[in-house]
């Protein structure tokens, strides 16, 4: 929920209307094999998203506010999922978050409670608003050269801890964008590591109409699912 709110608020406030990029996500988890997924993503604020997965299989995911389509052109099957809650955009939250020094937390009602200077790094500690303290956890943000380099968060019950490292910053248009985000999540059962690498990032470029108005071919059977 928090990630979703952040993504929407950040996309609306950043001046970024669209993002097009190539991604590779590598995940490793305790006791499991490494998994790599790569493809191309198109995002139009605040909710529209089109993901073309190339590896390990051909898959198209398109989502808008409360609808999600998953299409398999090789298997010739598809899902149409309707949700009661808004669909959060995926893969772009990290980029949008890194554009703000406060990660967009102030707009969510978070309060800056402490700050420390650690060498060339500024550490800021953020507590959730009192009325949401049961649902949201605290954040620690590390900034170097006015860029977010690390974000640490934990769930309100303290059971899940997550640390993200933002690196390989490059300038795209007027924005400094991290081209690699590594996240480690720990809970009672496992340690999970996710590395997302971005390539060919384009901001505010025109998204082709063929994608904006993409429809699953009529002959493909679509499984209707309600969440």
């Amino acid at each position, binding site marked *: 929920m928090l990630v979703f709110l952040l993504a929407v608020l950040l996309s609306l406030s950043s001046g970024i209307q669209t993002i097009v990029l190539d991604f590779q996500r590598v995940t490793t988890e305790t006791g499991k094999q490494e998994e790599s997924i790569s493809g191309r993503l198109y995002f139009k604020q605040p909710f529209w998203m089109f993901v073309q997965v190339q590896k390990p*299989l051909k*898959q198209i995911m398109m*989502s808008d506010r409360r609808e999600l389509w*998953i299409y398999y052109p090789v*298997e010739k099957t598809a899902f149409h999922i309707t949700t009661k809650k808004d669909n959060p955009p995926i893969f772009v939250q990290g980029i949008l978050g890194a554009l703000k020094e406060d990660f967009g937390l102030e707009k969510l009602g978070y309060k800056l409670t402490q700050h420390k200077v650690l060498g060339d790094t500024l550490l800021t500690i953020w507590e959730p608003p009192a009325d949401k303290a*049961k649902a949201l956890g605290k954040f620690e943000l590390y900034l170097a050269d006015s860029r977010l380099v690390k974000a640490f968060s934990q769930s309100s019950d303290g059971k899940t801890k997550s640390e993200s490292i933002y690196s390989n910053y490059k300038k795209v248009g007027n924005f400094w964008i991290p081209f690699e985000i590594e996240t480690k999540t720990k809970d009672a059962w496992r340690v999970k590591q996710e590395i997302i690498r971005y390539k060919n990032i384009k901001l505010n470029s025109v998204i082709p109409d063929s994608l904006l108005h993409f429809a699953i071919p009529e002959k493909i059977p679509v499984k209707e699912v309600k969440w």
Partner: protein
Amino acid sequence: MFTGVPFRNALKVFSILLVAIMVLSPMTIMAQDESTNACMQAEQDAAMNTNGTLWFAAGCLGGIVGLLVAYAIQPNPPASKLVGKSPTYVATYTDCYRSKAKNIQTHKALLGCGVAAGFYLVYWVVIAAAASST
């Protein structure tokens, strides 16, 4: 004894069946493995993403209403977990995630509701005892 056309035909059918079993068995096992893996992953993710403290508090403070809300609210699996996954995985993952998350929500809210009811009971017993002693 084992010669002639009928025997050769039977042998042919047997060979085809054997090859079919050899080819299809690993595929069936792989599909089962994928479903099992998807369900296990979904249950772990649901346990991680569902805020037990929040639902306990909802049950504790909201009582029956909190419990009903916990039962009525449908948890959504994260779409990011479905990227790059097969149709079998997607179908299994979403079913298992929702089932597990709802189970946790309801269980925690029920626990919260029970604890609140226990406190009320103790409170009224103490009040009643105090009233009867005066």
